[in-house]
C-alpha cells in the first residue's frame, strides 16, 4: 500500500485507489493546493479538478454551443487550454471566474472557427417585457430554459449570454466580437424577443410547473 502525507492536513493517507483520495480531498484540500498539484502534472489532482469544475463549465459551454455534443467538445478543448495554462493563473480573481472566462473564450473561438455568424444590426422588434415571462423565469425547468437559449440563432445566443448572464457591457462585447455596439444591442433585443416567444409557447407547461 502506498502511503503518503496529504498536502492539506499532513495526515498519512493511503494512495491506493482514487475514491479513497477523493473522499479525503473533499474534506479539506483548497483550490490553491489543487491547482499547484495540477501544475505538477499530478494525474489524481487533475482528475479531481476536472470532476469538481467540469459540470459548471459544461453548463457554460452548453449555453454557447449549438448542441450538447458540441458543448462536450468545447469542454474538452477548454480543459486542455486550462491545464496548459493553469500555471499562469495568479489567484488574483476567483478560480471559477477565471475558468469561466477561459471556457467562454474557447466557446467563442470554436463558434467563430466552425460557423459563419450573421450579425444583423437593425432592430425589427422590441421586447415588450411580458411580466408573465419574467415571473415564470423563476419557475421554469432549468434544462428547458437552457434548451431555449441554445435554440436561439448563434449571434443572438452569444450576445444574450455575454450581456445578460456574464455581465459584459455592450462595449466589451463589441470589442470581443469585432462588431459595433449598436449591433450588440440589437442582437440582445432580438434575442430577448425570440426567447420570450419560445417561453410563451411553453406557457402552458410553465403554468402547470408553477402550480406544482
Amino acid at each position: 500500500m502506498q502511503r503518503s502525507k496529504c498536502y492539506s492536513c499532513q495526515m498519512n493517507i493511503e494512495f491506493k485507489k482514487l475514491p479513497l483520495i477523493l473522499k479525503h480531498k473533499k474534506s479539506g484540500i483548497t483550490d490553491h493546493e489543487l491547482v499547484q498539484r495540477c501544475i505538477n502534472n499530478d494525474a489524481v489532482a487533475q482528475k479531481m479538478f476536472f470532476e469538481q469544475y467540469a459540470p459548471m463549465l459544461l453548463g457554460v459551454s452548453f449555453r454557447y454551443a449549438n448542441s450538447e455534443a458540441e458543448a462536450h467538445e468545447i469542454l474538452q478543448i477548454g480543459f486542455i487550454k486550462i491545464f496548459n495554462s493553469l500555471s499562469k493563473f495568479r489567484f488574483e480573481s476567483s478560480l471559477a471566474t477565471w475558468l469561466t472566462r477561459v471556457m467562454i473564450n474557447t466557446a467563442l473561438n470554436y463558434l467563430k472557427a466552425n460557423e459563419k455568424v450573421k450579425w444583423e444590426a437593425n432592430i425589427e422588434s422590441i421586447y415588450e417585457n411580458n411580466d408573465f415571462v419574467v415571473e415564470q423565469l423563476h419557475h421554469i425547468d432549468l434544462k428547458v430554459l437552457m434548451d431555449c437559449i441554445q435554440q436561439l440563432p448563434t449571434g443572438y445566443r452569444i450576445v444574450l449570454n455575454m450581456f445578460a448572464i456574464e455581465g459584459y457591457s455592450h462595449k466589451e462585447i463589441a470589442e470581443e466580437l469585432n462588431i459595433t455596439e449598436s449591433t450588440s444591442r440589437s442582437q440582445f433585443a432580438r434575442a430577448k424577443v425570440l426567447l420570450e416567444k419560445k417561453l410563451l409557447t411553453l406557457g402552458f407547461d410553465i403554468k402547470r410547473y408553477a402550480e406544482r
Partner: protein
Amino acid sequence: MDLILKGMQNDKFNNILKDRAKEFVLLPNANAFENMVAYRKKAKRKRIVVFMVFLAFLMSFGTTVFFINNKHRERIESNKTVTLKSEPNLSNKPKIAEKIIKKSTGKIIMERSNKPLNIYKPNDVDSAPEMLNDIKAKQGNLNIVTSANEVNLNKNESIFHDENLQEIKKLKVYQDTALLVKKVIDSNNADTNLTDEEFLAKAINDTLSAALIANNVASSKINYKTKEPIHLSLSVFNYYMLLNKAYNGADNNLINSIFGLDYNEQANQSYSLGFLFGLTRKKISLKVGFAYNNVQFDKLFIPSDSMVTGANVKKESLVNDFGYNINVIDQSLSFVEMPILLGYTIGSKKVNYTFETGLAFQYLTQTNTYLLTSDVNGFSYNTRNDAGNNRFNQFQIAGQFSFLINYNLTRHISIYGGPITKFHLGQYFKQEFTDRSAPIYLGLNTGINFKF
C-alpha cells in the same frame, strides 16, 4: 415613467436569467476526462514529432552548409601555390614580398616586414592601377617572366610601364601577381608544391587559373583573418553508470528492518550506447545524436497487491512467516534517447577539455520485471514484459552534464573520457508514484570522436 419601468424590468429579466444560468450544471460523459488526457498526450507527442523534424531539418541544413563550406576550402587548398620549408633569405633580393609563409592550417599569407602585402579583391577593378603602383613602387629592379618554359630575367624590362597602366585589365593584374610570387620563390631557390611547368602553365597559359591563384591568395588571407570554418564531427560514446541513487520508499523501511536488506533502489548495471553528430566552431560545439539506454533496478521491493497482482506469483513462506504480503522484484528499463548537447572546449591542440551540458529526450521502449517469489521449495523467478503498464512515464527528459578530457590521436580522430552526471527532469514515475524521486546517475563517459 414607462422607460424607467421597462429598464427595471430589463434588469430583472437579466438578473433572473443570470441567477438561473449560474445554477445550471451538466454532468460530463463518464470518460470525458480520459478522452481529454488522451488528447493532450497525443498533442504532446505531435509537438515532440514537430520538434524532432525541426531538429532534423537543422541538422540537414547544418550539414549542407558544412559541405558547401568544406568544398570551398578544398578548392582553395587544391590551388595553393606556395609552400616554403624554410624562411627565404631575402637580404639581397627584391623587396616585393619578404616573407611567404605557409601556415599550419594550409592558409597562405604574404607579409612584408610583419605587415601584410596589399592584395586586392578580384572584383575591385578600380584598385587595379593603385595596386600596380604599389607593386611597382616596391619592385625595384624586378624582372619579368616571359615564357612557360623558361624564366628570363631581363633586367631592363619591367612588367609594368606607366604608359600601359590604364590599359591593364583585371585578369592581367592577377597573372602578373602570380608571376611575381613565383619569381620570389625561384630567386630564393625555395621548394614548392608545384613544378615550374605546373605553376607557369597556370600562371601564363591559363589566365583564368592565374586569376584564381591570386583570388585564392587574397581570399585565403581574408578567411584566415576573419572566418573560422565549421567542423562536422561524429562521436561514438558509451556511458557506464557507476552510482545510481533512487527513491527511498516508505514501505521499504519496514522490509529493511525485517530482512536486513538495503531498501534503496539501486541501478548497478546501467549503461548507454550511442552516437552524436556535432557542429563545432571555434570553442563551441553543438551535438545531436541517438542512444540506447538500459537501467537495471536491483532489489526493488513492492507490495504484492499493487501493480503486479496479475502475475502468476506464489506467495508462500517468506511472505506468510512474516505476515506481510510482499514480492521482491528486479526491474530493467530500456530507453531510446536523443541527446542535444552544448559544449565548450578549452586547452591545447593535443589535449583539451570539454564541458558539455544538455538535454536527453527519452522514450521508454521496454520494461522487464523479474519477480522473485518464495515458497517452501525456495526462490523462483518469473519474468514478464510490463511495457505500457508500468510505473514509469513513457516520455522522459533528462538533463546531463559532463566533463571530458580529449586526446587528439590525429588531426581527425580523438578519444575522450570523463565523468558524467545525469538527472531526470519532470516526472520520472507516473502520478500514482509521485512520492518517489527519480534516480540520479553518476558515471564514466568514454568515446571516440571523428572530425571531418
